[in-house]
């Protein structure tokens, strides 16, 4: 096997591994596009494209004038640019339920699986974390990084 062949093989394996968890083409270390952060990160964390599949992003973008009961409408040029990023880097595995694309990341199967060990006190009651507020525990969520290394659960009694 030539050196070049080996290199290609290694690349293919790395690419295959990156898709194995169902995430999109975007590297988890790649910075989020500044325009996306600017447009979609004003009211909430700029959720990386890999969190929803392309059908879910299409549904989100189709309803921005009533986006979770808030007007998040965009001009057509901006919308087109964001569509390229979101659909091009969307999750490969489906994020749907009963054949319908899910709009809430928190309702997806992968999200619920990843969060099934979160203590009950952070799910309900006075210390409950707002579901949209990734930064409550994921300290580098604003940069699109959700690695466990940067994970820190709020302590008991810690007021946010």
């Amino acid at each position, binding site marked *: 096997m030539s050196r070049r062949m080996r290199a290609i093989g290694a690349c293919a394996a790395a690419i295959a591994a990156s898709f194995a968890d169902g995430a999109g083409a975007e590297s988890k270390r790649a910075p989020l596009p500044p325009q996306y952060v600017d447009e979609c990160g004003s*009211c*909430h*964390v700029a959720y990386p494209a890999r969190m929803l599949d392309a059908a879910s992003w299409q549904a989100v973008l189709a309803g921005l004038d009533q986006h979770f009961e*808030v007007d*998040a409408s*965009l*001009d057509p040029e901006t919308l087109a640019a964001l569509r390229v990023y979101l659909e091009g880097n969307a999750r490969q595995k489906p994020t749907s339920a009963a054949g319908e694309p899910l709009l809430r990341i928190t309702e997806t199967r992968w999200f619920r699986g990843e969060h099934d060990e979160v203590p009950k006190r952070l799910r309900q009651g006075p210390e409950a974390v*707002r579901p*949209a507020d990734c930064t409550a525990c994921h300290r580098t969520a604003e940069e699109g990084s959700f690695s466990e290394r940067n994970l820190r659960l709020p302590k008991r009694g810690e007021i946010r």
Partner: protein
Amino acid sequence: MRWGLLILLLALGAGAARAETPADFEAQFAAEARQNDPSYAGASAARGQQLFGTTHGGDWSCSSCHGKDPTAVGEHVVTGKRIEPLAPAANPQRFTRPAKVEKWFKRNCNDVLKRPCTAQEKGDVLAFLMTFAAKGTR
């Protein structure tokens, strides 16, 4: 190469022409308000403050997310996201980009008032926001 430089300079010039100040927006809203109503007597910070803090029959007011003190950092009422201060004295980036001003008035007036704001209302809110001085100079 020379053409590239020329195009770059033209683009920069166009960009600079679009950068505005809060005073430009005050003038623009006043002109529009006068067009709608020839007897328009100017913006009112008191009316703006009233509009800013009222829920108008819905769930939210402007201050639900921007806070009661527009020179302070706000917090989105649903998501908890940090929102930089709205008063230009506390945040010099506010009211400098027409597209951004237009986008957020459109969205937030729909959210709070369930309709677009009039030019008079925009002028009143801006007049209210302009009554705040930079922190430490008050």
